[in-house]
């Protein structure tokens, strides 16, 4: 039972935001020693499992070419493409962005989007602009926040449920690295990536439907705030009269 303290170290370490490398190192040493391994055996198991888990880190091989392409404007080109989607409603625009984000992530292009790369400069302003064009006036603060939150949400959900369909993404390689070194198996990253596809499709259907519904929600809430404004205006004139 006492070896379970190692799990506790991991949970506490991550939950209290310690540096993850230190958490993992400490948990490994503590678990090994509690599991009655000698210090030498602990070192050997660090070494052996590091050697058999190297495949987890090989995605580094793609960095030079991705870096080269970004130097020549890969992100800017992605922005130009998305910019062409201008005249859609907020919900349709975000649904399309969700799809694009999923598809590009599923071929390994995870870094062309993201909160800093695409959401702030591009997706959120365009989603807001679409809502304002439809409303014919600036959005009330509450709705503006909602649209921006959904812009960020579409980006995150898109990349999460797209990237696992790619074989060389950290999470897929972590699975194969862990299982192959721990249980002495030969799992292929490709098979795992294929099994991520059904969930990716569900993610698109569910979140896409919610985003399309966002248009209706915005319309309803805009109507409510418009009515409130009218009431306030009328109330204003009435007090004027009473004076």
């Amino acid at each position: 039972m006492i070896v379970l303290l190692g799990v506790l170290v991991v949970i506490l370490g991550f939950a209290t935001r310690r540096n993850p490398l230190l958490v993992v190192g400490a948990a490994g040493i503590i678990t090994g020693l509690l599991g009655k391994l000698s210090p030498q055996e602990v070192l050997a198991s660090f070494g052996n499992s590091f050697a058999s888990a190297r495949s987890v880190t090989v995605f580094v091989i793609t960095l030079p070419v991705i870096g080269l392409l970004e130097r020549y404007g890969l992100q800017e080109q992605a922005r130009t493409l998305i910019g062409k989607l201008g005249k859609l409603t907020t919900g349709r625009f975000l649904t399309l962005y969700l799809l694009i984000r999923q598809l590009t992530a599923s071929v390994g292009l995870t870094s062309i989007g993201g909160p800093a790369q695409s959401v702030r400069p591009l997706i959120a302003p365009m989603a807001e602009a679409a809502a304002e064009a439809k409303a014919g006036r600036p959005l009330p603060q509450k709705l503006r926040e909602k649209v921006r939150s959904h812009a960020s949400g579409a980006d995150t959900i898109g990349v999460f449920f797209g990237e696992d369909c790619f074989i060389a993404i950290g999470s897929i390689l972590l699975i194969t690295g862990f299982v192959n070194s721990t249980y002495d198996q030969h799992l292929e990253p490709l098979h795992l990536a294929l099994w991520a596809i059904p969930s990716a499709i569900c993610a698109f259907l569910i979140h896409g439907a919610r985003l399309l519904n966002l248009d209706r929600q915005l319309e309803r809430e805009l109507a409510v705030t418009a009515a409130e404004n009218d009431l306030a205006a009328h109330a204003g004139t009435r007090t004027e009269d009473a004076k």
Partner: protein
Amino acid sequence: MIKSEYFFWLVGAVFLVMAAQMAIDRTNPKRFGSAAFWGLLGAAFFYSTGVVDESLPAEPLGVVVLVLIVLGGFGLTGKGESHTPPREKRAASAARFGNKLFLPALTIPVVAMICATLVKNWKIGGEPVLEPGYETILGLGVGAVAALAVGMVLLRERKVSVPLHSGRNMLESMGWALLLPQLLSVLGSIFQTAGVGDQVGRITEAVLPDGQRLVAVAVYCGGMALFTIVMGNAFAAFPVMTAAIGWPVLIEQMNGNAPAVLAIGMLCGFCGTLVTPMAANFNLVPAALLELKDQYGPIKAQLPTAAALLVCNVVIMALFAF
């Protein structure tokens, strides 16, 4: 036969070259720490070959791993000035090359797929061209090299140092986080060696009603999501939950299809990431970047989807993984 070890040497060599670039980069305030970190990592990729075939002892490698943990964990690595050209220049280049820019990037997955499906069956003199069991990984290596060649020709870039410098910039900005997945799988193995999986497995077997597959699937999926919410990281939750339930109960005891169980299990963790403030970079940082008053805005936008997807994942696993 192209062996996986050759590919690991290539990756190790890339680390070593980038470490050398870092050592002479005076714009990096911690250039020696950075160079030591990535240089040791590169050397470890070579040394590991001997550990895998048991011609070299594993203990020195274990010491190196602990040194890497110390270098990264105590913030002794840093980053230099980026070599990226200014935005106007990149925009001009994007206008010039247009969608052709996507071509090299698409080369990677296409080549990797071809290797994993077609080249897999090729044989020369009765010997497979790619080492069995590593076709996809090797495909990734071949694909990345091919993509680099396509990119350099397409962009008329002559100097190999340019992509290496850009890649190093990316490496530096990811920093030690890049090593985390590999260390988590190291931790998973140590858990296994020390008998953590057996212990948790025994507890779950005692708690779980025997042979209730749907319950076991729901516990694994829900546990992945819950652990991820607490720890803020699906990568950290994965070794724990898989050693506890995923492997011993779902795969060994109930004969689940391993790739399906594990891939979907990881995605259940992602459902947790969508709703936890612990995953600051995905949920709180965007709120700050978008100047939201409600820093939980993105989480609220994601919550219903995350909950529905978790249910979907349980159903998909229960229906198709057995």
